[in-house]
């Protein structure tokens, strides 16, 4: 299992991203679309974490004396994913706020009802 841990996590990431994308593009309910988007970003984040995986590696934290005790996984993707999570959070929060406002306006969550602008 350890041998393929990286690939498994990576596969999960891709599957989630694709599924999220499917949800975003197929659901008419805007809340569900946002859920799809969340799943999509989660998938992407998992891919990021998986990229930094090194077989047999542990968290990149040194011991109290400041010595490396074991093989580390890459700290960079771990740092990047933190940023990515926060961005995803900000975007999701904004989308939800938009949907709330739109709902107040037309009392509908169906994306097809919001086509006032076109052509």
């Amino acid at each position: 299992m350890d041998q393929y841990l990286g690939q498994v996590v990576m596969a999960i990431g891709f599957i989630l991203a694709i599924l999220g994308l499917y949800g975003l593009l197929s659901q008419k309910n805007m809340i569900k679309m946002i859920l799809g988007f969340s799943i999509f970003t989660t998938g992407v984040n998992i891919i990021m974490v998986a990229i930094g995986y090194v077989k047999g590696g542990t968290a990149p934290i040194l011991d109290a004396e400041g010595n490396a005790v074991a093989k580390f996984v890459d700290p960079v993707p771990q740092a990047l994913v933190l940023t990515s999570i926060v961005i995803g959070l900000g975007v999701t929060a904004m989308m939800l706020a938009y949907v709330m406002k739109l709902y107040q306006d037309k009392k509908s969550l169906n994306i097809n009802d919001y086509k006032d602008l076109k052509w």
Partner: protein
Amino acid sequence: MVGPIYIIALALGLAFFLGFFGKSAKTLSVYLMLAGLAAMTCISGTWLSAFIDGSVSTQEIYTAGFKPPYSINLRMGLEEAAFTFIINLIGLLGGTYLFQTLKKAGNAAMSVFIILIMSLNVIVMTRDLFNLFVFVEIGSIATAGLILLDKESKALQAGLKYMIATGVISGLLLIGIIFAYSFVGNLNIDAIIGANLAGTTAGMVAAFLIVVVLVLELKPFPANGWGLDVYEAANPGVGALVSAAIGTASLFVLHKVLPMAGESFYPYIVAVGVITFVGSNLVGTQQKNANRLLGYSSIGQLGLVVAVIGLEPVLGTSFKFIAFALIINHVLAKAGLFWISGIIRKANISEWSVLRTKPALLISFLIFIFALIGFPPFPSFFGKYQLIMNLISSDNIGTAAFILIGSFAEGIYMFRWVGDALKNEVAEDATESLDCGKLNKVLPVLLMAVAVVAAGYLSIPFVDGAYSTYFIPLAFIMFIGLIDSFLPAVVKNVVSIAGMAYFTYVMYPIIEGDLMRSIFFGIFMIGGILTLIPGFAKKGKREGFYPAALLMYAGLATIITADNTFGFFFGWELMTAGSYFLIIRGKRSKAHAYSYMLFSVAGAYLILFGFGFAYQAIGSSLLEGLGEIKLLPTLAYTALAIGFMTKTASLGLHIWLPGAHGEAESDVSPMVSAVLLKAGVFGLMLLFLNMGDNGETILYVLGWVGAFTALMGNLSATFQEDAKRMLAYSSIGQLGYILFAISMMTTLGWLAGFTYVLNHFMFKSILFMVVGGIVVATGTHDLYRMGGLIKKMPLAFIAVMVAMITMAGLPPLSGFAGKWLFYNAVILKGWYIQGVIVFFAGTIAFMYAYKMLHSIFFGQLKDNHRNLKELSPAILIPAYILIAGIMYFSVFPQDVLQPINELLVSLNLGDTLTWAADGNATTVLSNWNGNAVMIIIVTTFALVLLYTMLITGKTKKLEQFNIAYSAERPFRPETTHYSHNMFAGLNKAIGFLVAPGITSFWNNVSTMVMDFAGMVRRIYSGNGQVYAGQIIVYIIVFYFIALGK
């Protein structure tokens, strides 16, 4: 100097600081925000000026105290300085513009605003891929926030669509970035570029994802519905930011990151850009909503720059100039237009006529539109010229053609808009919605207008063949424009005539010794002064007239004096713009000016296209290149010929002329008819002299076109009831003769051509001046409403009669000289059938000459014309000066034709004419002597006249009402008029020849384009989910085309 990092620190510190105020101190907050933006502008501005001085070199800014790639680094070089300066300046002016809106929205909105500008700075400066991603996201979120400034439902919808779209693409960007990191082990952009990421399949996919997302940030057609909605729904002040600032930053990022995908990827970016430019502009032709239209235009312009970015390897050293000229032009013009839109507050472009109540804004509006279409003297003109030259030089002919097509499509909607603004009725309550009381809204617009002109001037050193002297007449015109609204027309007329006279004096030495140019220069400049004189008869201020007229004449002079294709094209476009503004002044000229402009712009692009081949041939812009074209010469020469023929209004390209000339103001018609059309003739002559053997077929075809143009023009003229339209059609016919004559490419043919050119200039000036004056005096265009004016206006009658005799080619006047040369030429050339057609057309010319002369001056004087007086001396004096010219040319034709003959002999055209000392001209067929003909005819005429006067001494004069009427009045009185439908029989017989088939052909073309655009734009269904799906489709299609091997 202040480090660029302080731009970030300052903006963020300020944004956070505004949070202290909560909901209070809003005014102070706006001022603080503006101060912050001003400081940011200053920082990047000082860097920019230091880079221009050369006093600093490119700086790398390391953060965290570690060198890259271990930490994030920023770069400040010339390009970064320029781009951040533009962005910050737009931010500062945009913030100023939005002062009231931001104040109302509160401190949070101000924080968002300043953070948006800051993020764009970082996007430009950063050299770290992930950092780029973070700040792109900041930019997107801040934009999504600013879209809501107006808190309307539409803005909300647009904002959500925007968020969904950017959310999807940023996720994909992240996948690309993280894999790029995994392959290269680095996030530094330079390191990734150096590592040949695209070398492996997976690496290429990663690079593809990164690049395609950055392309998608630029809203490529057709996956851009979400972007269009933002432009339409957001506050125009935000639209300006999205288009000008964000668009600029995104372009820079694409340029920065594109090398990751490797050389082989560039052509696809070119395709993306060109498709966007053409597609967006085509679909825009159906759009009537001002902000959405600006959105289409923005996306199109950004697409053009995307194409240029993809062309970097092709364009070489010109790349930076071309890209920057197009960007700065887009930024200044588009920001200005969006801001005007926010002041006008009219969604439908047809209501923009309200602009006319604010002249400064109207002029700015015109400057922006003409800058966007690429007219001189704006930077896009320089950029586009150099772009087309380089493209054709590097054998990218298709790309050049598509770019010109896209530019034309943009012209379709932009000039419709200009027409609406200039001509539509201003509704009474229209000014109520105007929001121009605030200086902070108007000032940024005016600044942009000044800046775009200045940017044009600064472009001069970068283009081969551009001289700063081209701007001298423009400066004079600007001066006239400044005094335009203060002084009466009389004063401006004197100043304009003096200016033109001085300009002629200064410019003449440049062309002295070149006979062909001297003749045309004489027509343009002397003609210009003479046609300005009738303006003394006009009252009031005539705002806009003098700048337009001088613009046209400056253009004409530049065409003649230019020694290179750039100068020629510069003059050509100035002339087009000036004449457009003259033509559109007519009361019912909106549609005619529009079609004139469309034909002119299309023609100009064909000329530019043809010039590209000349540039390719000799590697420089000199006109000599026209004779050296080796690459696709037939295509190049055909393009040039058609381009010039749009101005000579040859058959098929003539439909704009009758309306444009017929409906123009009385003193504009002679300018655009007698003078302007000769520009096309000059172009054709220049072309024919350079075509060599490659032009045989073209000349043959043009000969036929000329013959049919002559026939169609004259025939149509006979069927006109409108006096000025009759003259307009007659111009088409006359230009047909000229085209036919010079297409023969023999000495005699060209002599005939020159004779026609000079004659047409003189008699058509006279006719349009005098008939135009009569139309104003009688208050009608219709010939059957005139009559009997010979007693009221004897001097006008004589002028028209002399002009008519010249036009009809009757001896003894110079028209006959033209005919005589012409028939000799035709016979020697052997173009018999064409010659017969032209001969037939010449006969028809008698008919309308007679109809006009009779209808206006003979017959019954109309009741309401009983108090008319002779025309103003302002009209008669130039007319009689021209009559003197005709007389001189008729009596002493050798003075003019002999030097031309020598010139033509030196050009080896064959079929020559020999002159004897007594003025006797001989060809191998016959001989002719102008002096003798004149003496004989005048003597005969005098004898007949004398005899007639003797025998008529005793007759009783018949008064007008000594005629018995029957007791009834016809239902349509004009049907009883002698000249109404005068040539009905002829019409029945051969009228089908002038059936409006050509007009309906062009109508069908335009309907087809519009229908196509209407069909394509249905992809913008308005559904945010569909838009996201389109993005995915775009990526998939792009991938399988570019990488799916």
